Each structure stands twice: as structure tokens, then as C-alpha cells.
């Protein structure tokens, strides 16, 4: 249950971003969470709510964008979605392919109400 720590880090990141837009009120924050990030969306949403309810952040909504695991073939450059852990290139059959997304835990955007 590290989602509470992660929710806290999200709020810290929002706080840092808001400082760059004086007077603006953040109303929504969106995250990209890869399927390999080891982060549970429900627990994260729950932790986020627990941290914001009854505070100045109470109106801040959280959007979680789940990102599937995507690989690229170093031989033929094909990019493909990994389903059921099958990392073999569907185009040329190469077995060693590289992960290009699916393990991210990033902020995507913040929506601000400006004064």
C-alpha cells in the first residue's frame, strides 16, 4: 500500500507546478500509470481522496490514464502491444525486444482555473 505515498507525491508535484502560475487554482491532475508500474488505481484514488478531503485541495480531481506495455523490436523497428507477457516481435519473430512504455508513473497534465 504505497499508493498513499504516491498520492502525496502527486500533490507535491501539483503544488510545485501551481507556484509557477500565481493565483491559479488547480482543479484536475492527470497521471499516466503503466501496467508495470505496480500501482493500483483504486488504492491510489482512495489515497488521493483521503489526503484531499476537507483541505484546500478538496476540489482537485484525479484522472488516471492506464498505459499498456509496449515494446519495440530492435531488428525491424516494429512497435507492438505486449499481451499476456508475449514480448516476441509479431512482425519478424525476434525474441529480444525492448520496453518503450508501460512502466511509467508520470504526471500528464494539470488543469488550472486562472484568476
Amino acid at each position, binding site marked *: 500500500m504505497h499508493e498513499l*505515498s504516491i498520492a502525496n*507525491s502527486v500533490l507535491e508535484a501539483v503544488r510545485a*507546478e501551481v507556484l509557477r502560475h500565481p493565483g*491559479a487554482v488547480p482543479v484536475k491532475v492527470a497521471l499516466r500509470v503503466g501496467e508495470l508500474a*505496480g500501482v493500483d488505481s483504486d488504492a491510489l484514488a482512495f489515497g488521493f481522496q483521503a489526503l484531499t478531503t476537507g483541505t484546500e485541495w478538496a476540489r482537485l480531481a484525479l484522472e488516471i490514464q492506464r498505459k499498456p506495455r509496449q515494446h519495440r523490436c530492435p531488428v525491424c523497428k516494429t512497435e507492438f502491444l505486449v499481451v499476456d507477457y508475449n514480448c516476441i516481435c509479431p512482425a519478424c519473430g525476434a525474441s529480444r525486444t525492448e520496453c518503450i512504455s508501460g512502466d511509467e*508513473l508520470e504526471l500528464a497534465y494539470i488543469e488550472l482555473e486562472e484568476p
Partner: protein
Amino acid sequence: MKRVAVERKVLSENDRIAGQLRERFCAHDVVCLNLISSPGAGKTSLLERTLEGFPTGERVAVLTGDIQTDHDATRLARFGFPVRQITTGGACHLDARMVERALEGWRLEDLDLLLIENVGNLVCPASYDLGECAKIVVLSVAEGEDKPLKYASIFFRSTLLVLNKIDLLPYVPFDIVRAREYARRVHPEIEIVEVSCTSGAGMENWRQWLRFRRQAAQPISP
């Protein structure tokens, strides 16, 4: 309403500190390894076996993380190498800040191996970079062989899988062939060693892996 794109990792503060730690480790040619497993898979036993095999004066130190108690530090300190307990007081993982604090007062120039035993948990520690050179996941045969599929994140991010307690294989329904296959399905490049900290079986393979890792980190002599 204004939408601002933010290119920033959620754990960027942790990653920043981890990056500083990694630079310090590299500057002093210290190999830092982050050991992760569920509770009871044998991280502490693996460290005990590892430390007992080192000669006096080996340049090794250990940080060991637990939610409560300093039992592990006590177990590990008897081998005579520097050991510090990190008690997280509830947190289910170590983060880079805890490691940074725990290192205070230690001279990295006196070390070339730092072993970090994370809090027993297969989920949360996967998200937190500690500045390590490699993550090592320990899985015991007393658990299920499908753990790599259920906890893909940690197996995906680990360089080495240590399959522990292989002395129990005759007594448990663990399918070791499947376990290897599942781990490689999640992470095709993962290296695997099989050991028993109780009988000592396979320990030489683990020590050899450590030696390679440490040799690779040493500057090439002119």
C-alpha cells in the same frame, strides 16, 4: 480553464535523490544492490550466508529495512561488517531519502559493496529507486511459482532472480521450471540463480554473480 502539460515523474523527488546517490556510488566504485522479496523469502538469510563467506576486512556494508524492530541488524552485525537498520515506522518500502540518511557518517571510499535489504514486500519497493546498480528479487520455493506473473513489476525491474530454499523442493508443489519460464516471460533478460541458504546449495553461483558484478564496477587498471 487552462490545461498545462507537465512532463514530470510522480516520484521525481525520490528519483532526484536516488540519482545523487547513484553518482556518489559510481564516484567511489561502490556496487549497491537492492534486495527485494516478500516477507520470509530469505533476504536476511541470504545476507547472512553472504557475509559469513567474506574475509575479515572485506569492504562491505549492509542497510536493512523493516517496518519495526532491529532484529535483522542484530542478526547481520555479528559478522563484523558495518550494518545499519532502517526502521520505516509503518512505510512498506525504503525510499532514497531513507538510504541517504542511513549512510550519514559512513565513508563510501571505504566500501566497494553496499547491500540494501528492502522491507519485505513484492509490490511497493519496485516503485522506489534507491540509487542501486541492480535490483535483486528473492523468491522462495515455499511461495507460488506464478509470483512473477502476479507481481510483474518487480520481476521486470530486477536484474537477478534468486530462487531460494531449493532444499525444500521435494516437499512443496513448487514447479521450478515454470517459475523460471514465468520470470523470463515478464523479463526475458533476467538472470537466475538457485540457492538454499539452509543447505548451502547453489551459494557458489550467487557468490560468483556477486564477484562478476563487483569486478565489472572496478575501474580498469592501466
